[in-house]
């Protein structure tokens, strides 16, 4: 494709200066050959000048048989910038851990140079490779070329969203389970739920290998699976002493900041009362050679995180305090729990009600009842402090006992 139009972009030119890599350079680079990218520059300069976006609500566009994966987008200035009058994005499900080879990246770029704007987000904040700007007729061709290359679309709308994870065991010594393996498994297991929206609202999975939570799962996924351990922290006293020698103040930097207040350092040996350890990672983070998570590893499952709209932002909360994550993943009881939870949510959730909001509305205790999970103290920061208790069947139970 050849590009003739040239826009004056004094505002955006400004953003080409400075040491941080510039998105403007990227758009201009693509715009040299790609008319969509070129018109985007024009439209964006107008937005900068007017301090106003120029995109309209998206219509329903997509690929055949899928309800998600494409975000429709139309400009409100189609005459002025015809090449971006359609400017849909395609969400391409990334490989777990965002690993690529040079070869596959070139092939992905080939597809996108052929059919789209030549612009991407590597990656979107859910995790997808986001192909920015495509016309409606080009959606199907992109899709078939992607699948030929072995790729598929990600989620959008009220479906399972593209799961994502930290690099876990592939590159991190702290991963308490195989985040990438599990993420791939989940993505494959729920392909139908991912492509065909059938929930009250979106449903995100994020997998982090340890409580550092490098994929921010607790802040932005409906199901957050965070690796942890339940035996003793592994200690290499020699290496701990080395840290101390090399300037780490173990009392001030570690013991005092330990939330379990369970670390003692006598100048020679570190002692940890593991029964009070909160599994926060801090001591391990500071002395990676000296300490390591225990050997009895698994994950804590939390659920319900979301952004503010409508009922206020939520962090995920504990639903399964500890769960082993071992192959064959398909045998894990967890999937039954997940599907039970979805059933309850689908049957009773309101439109656009995230599962976290739903649980708050019906009450965690009632939700557990419905799902068939036992309440455990790990699910709460503390027991209730108000006496407004819906005692249930207390009398009945007592009668039975007597």
């Amino acid at each position, binding site marked *: 494709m050849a590009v003739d139009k040239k826009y004056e972009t004094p505002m955006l030119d400004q953003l080409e200066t400075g040491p941080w890599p510039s998105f403007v350079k990227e758009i201009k680079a*693509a715009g040299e050959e790609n008319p969509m990218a070129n018109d985007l520059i024009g439209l964006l300069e107008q937005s900068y000048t007017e301090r106003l976006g120029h995109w309209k609500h998206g219509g329903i566009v997509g690929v055949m048989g899928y309800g998600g994966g494409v975000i429709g987008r139309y400009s409100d200035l189609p005459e002025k910038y015809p090449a971006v009058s359609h400017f849909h994005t395609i969400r391409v499900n990334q*490989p777990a851990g965002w690993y690529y080879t040079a070869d596959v990246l070139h092939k992905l770029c080939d597809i996108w140079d052929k059919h789209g704007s030549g612009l991407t987000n*590597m990656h979107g904040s859910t995790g997808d490779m986001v192909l920015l700007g495509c016309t409606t007729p080009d959606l199907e061709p992109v899709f078939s070329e992607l699948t030929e290359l*072995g790729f598929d679309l990600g989620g959008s709308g009220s479906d399972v969203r593209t799961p994502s994870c930290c690099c876990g065991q592939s590159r991190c010594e702290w*991963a308490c389970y195989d985040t990438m393996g599990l993420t791939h498994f989940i993505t494959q297991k729920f392909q139908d739920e991912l492509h065909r929206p059938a929930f009250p609202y979106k449903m995100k999975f994020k997998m982090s290998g340890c409580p550092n939570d490098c994929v921010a799962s607790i*802040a932005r996924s409906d199901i957050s699976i965070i690796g942890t351990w339940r035996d003793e922290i592994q200690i290499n006293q020699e290496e701990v002493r080395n840290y101390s020698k090399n300037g780490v103040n173990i009392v001030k930097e570690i013991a005092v900041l330990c939330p379990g207040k369970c670390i003692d350092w006598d100048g020679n040996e570190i002692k940890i009362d593991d029964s009070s350890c909160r599994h926060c990672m801090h001591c391990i983070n500071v002395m990676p050679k000296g300490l390591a998570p225990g050997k009895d590893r698994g994950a804590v499952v939390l659920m319900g995180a979301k952004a503010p709209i409508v009922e206020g932002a939520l962090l995920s909360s504990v639903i399964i305090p500890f769960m082993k994550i071992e192959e064959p993943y398909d045998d894990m009881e967890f999937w039954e729990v997940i599907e039970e939870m979805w059933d309850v949510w689908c049957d009773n959730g309101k439109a*656009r009600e995230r599962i976290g909001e739903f649980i708050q509305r019906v009450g965690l205790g009632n939700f557990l009842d419905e799902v068939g999970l036992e309440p455990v103290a790990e699910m709460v920061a503390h027991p209730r402090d108000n006496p407004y208790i819906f005692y249930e069947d207390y009398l009945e139970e007592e009668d039975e006992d007597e």
Partner: protein
Amino acid sequence: MADAKPQRLTDIGPPHHDRFMPPIIKKNYGKWKYHEIPRPGVLVHTSDSGDKLYTVRAGSPRLLSTKKIRIFADLATKYCGGHLRFTSRHNVEFLLTDAANIDPLIADLDALGHPVGGTGNSITSIVHTQGWVHCHSAATDASGVVKAVMDDVIDEFKTMELPAKLRIALACCLNMCGAVHCSDIAILGIHKRIPQIDLKTLPKLCEIPNLIASCPTNAIRPTTYEGKPSVEIQEDQCMFCANCFTVCPAMPIADPDTDGVSIWIGGKVSNARSEPMFSKLAIPFIPNNPPRWPEVVEAVRMIVDLWKANANKHERVGEWIERIGWPKFFRMSGIPFEKTHIDDFKHAGLTFKRSAHLTY
């Protein structure tokens, strides 16, 4: 439908990562023992077997042209046997087995204009969203603000001299696609004018009951317009969240003169030391001032500097402020405390200061 076109591939999911991981990772998968950060932007992971993997992390604007992706791919071929990855904060990581390749790779990246850094106690890339580049909902641009801020704090990307990690995020509207609500510093696009109802198109474009239900504060009331069902907004009950616009295009809310950004601070995600925390409102409003949003840049810089100068080692922004108390933070920063800082949503009462633990 599947029967109609049997050969059409669907539901194949993403390719397995095995296809893409370098051999050293396949060999040592799950066997990494510890890591070190010999210099900013470079990680060395050592495995039980003694193998060493070198990672070089380079900053990225996230919005990449295929041209740039191809250049990254070629660098990976040149130095890393063709292997690379991206991070959860959108940086690009090159995975090396030969330490001797580190310096040449970094030199190439520098020449390309992609600084190496973002590891350890640094500022890494800003998680952000679409803004005026692609979204209909934006109250500000995303990439432009991010670029301006990163240009200013880039030294903190390239060094590791902060008390702890500092995570900045930006979302261009209250939908908060970047999930900025748990960031050390969050920049959030803000509308400040009530939606301008397009009474003509509304009945055609929108489901009125859904529209009414979408408003968190019940500001939208049913009414009629030219005999047809319509809605009106109780002005004093609207807090400009734009959720009505999300469900109904006939409620446009963006407005150049009143849109802008707010700054939120002290959130975190990790469980390290303290539990994850939400960010709290620091600066209620700064008007959009493209292309460089200088007031936003200055505000971020001020907060970073204040924290850097005063926090204890390992204290994230929120942990530092929790220790010194918010009143002291407001005094130190000179940010005026206003009515807008006082929560008035559902759980507001729980944010009131219910103790005599004050500093003077």
